[in-house]
């Protein structure tokens, strides 16, 4: 399960002519085109597995599934369950490392 589910919607021909891409979108494109986004994703995934964050999240999911029943659980339920705890329980060292790399890339891309 490595492919990310999130994907920006395919732009229609009519839309892009009126709307200007935001800075955020430009950055996103740069990250993706250079391959840095993929590298950062893999790095973050690896770090989160190493420190046991992923196992904690999986344990949360399992507890929830046990309570609610195997066949009554949706992906949405699990996402809403994990997101607040997941964001809060990121170790500071990992966050710092990733932010450092992102900032370096932004600077090197002269953004």
């Amino acid at each position, binding site marked *: *399960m*490595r*492919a*990310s*589910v*999130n994907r920006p919607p395919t732009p229609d021909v009519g839309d*892009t*002519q009126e709307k*200007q*891409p935001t*800075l*955020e979108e*430009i*950055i*996103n494109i*740069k*990250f993706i085109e250079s391959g840095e*986004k993929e590298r*950062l*994703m893999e790095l*973050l*995934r690896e770090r*989160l597995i190493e420190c046991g964050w*992923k196992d904690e*999240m*999986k344990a949360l*999911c*399992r507890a929830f*599934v046990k309570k609610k029943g*195997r*066949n009554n*659980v*949706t*992906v949405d339920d*699990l*996402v809403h*369950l*994990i*997101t607040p705890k*997941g*964001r809060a329980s*990121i170790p500071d060292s990992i*966050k710092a490392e*990733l*932010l450092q790399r*992102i*900032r370096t890339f*932004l*600077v090197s*891309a*002269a*953004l």
Partner: protein
Amino acid sequence: MIFLVSQRHTGLAILLLSLMSGFNEDNKASHAQLSSQFFGDLLDSIIVDVASECHRIARLGLDRNLEEEEEELRLSAQARVRVADPSNSGESNSKYVVDIFGQTHPPVANEIFDCMNCGRSIMAGRFAPHLEKCMGKGRKARLKVTRSSTAVQNRYSQGSPVSTYSPYSNSTNTSRLSNGTSGVAGEEYSNGTFQEP
């Protein structure tokens, strides 16, 4: 640097140029904010992936095995604690040591069977010492000569007090030699007709 030249991006090019014009403080702040935002996006993607994976495991019922594994992990952690616990010292409980299946074993094995050499009923825990006496290490064993082994011993007896090829020579060997007796202690082919002093 990507220079976007098409018409729809001119406004954007201006924006980029203004960013590049060196408002350092603003740059740092916006960098920090952009970085955090981007990090948040990465994290969200990973969270969705983890949720999707857990959902799949739940719906396919693959978590049955996981529960058994957890149980095993917990039991082994408990056992490790019990083993490391100094209050369960081996000396005080040596008679009633409990193994991982909860069974206790007596310190001396007490199953009884027949010795294949002499045919007597022997207790398993006493089998090794019995074999020593029965098969020839001990003093008395060399007197127990059976019909078949007599011929073998006569054939191999050298009559020499020292045999350098003895596979069973031990310390009692030298002490016997110093006493002036011939024969090599513990050797299977020692001549049984020599009388002990």
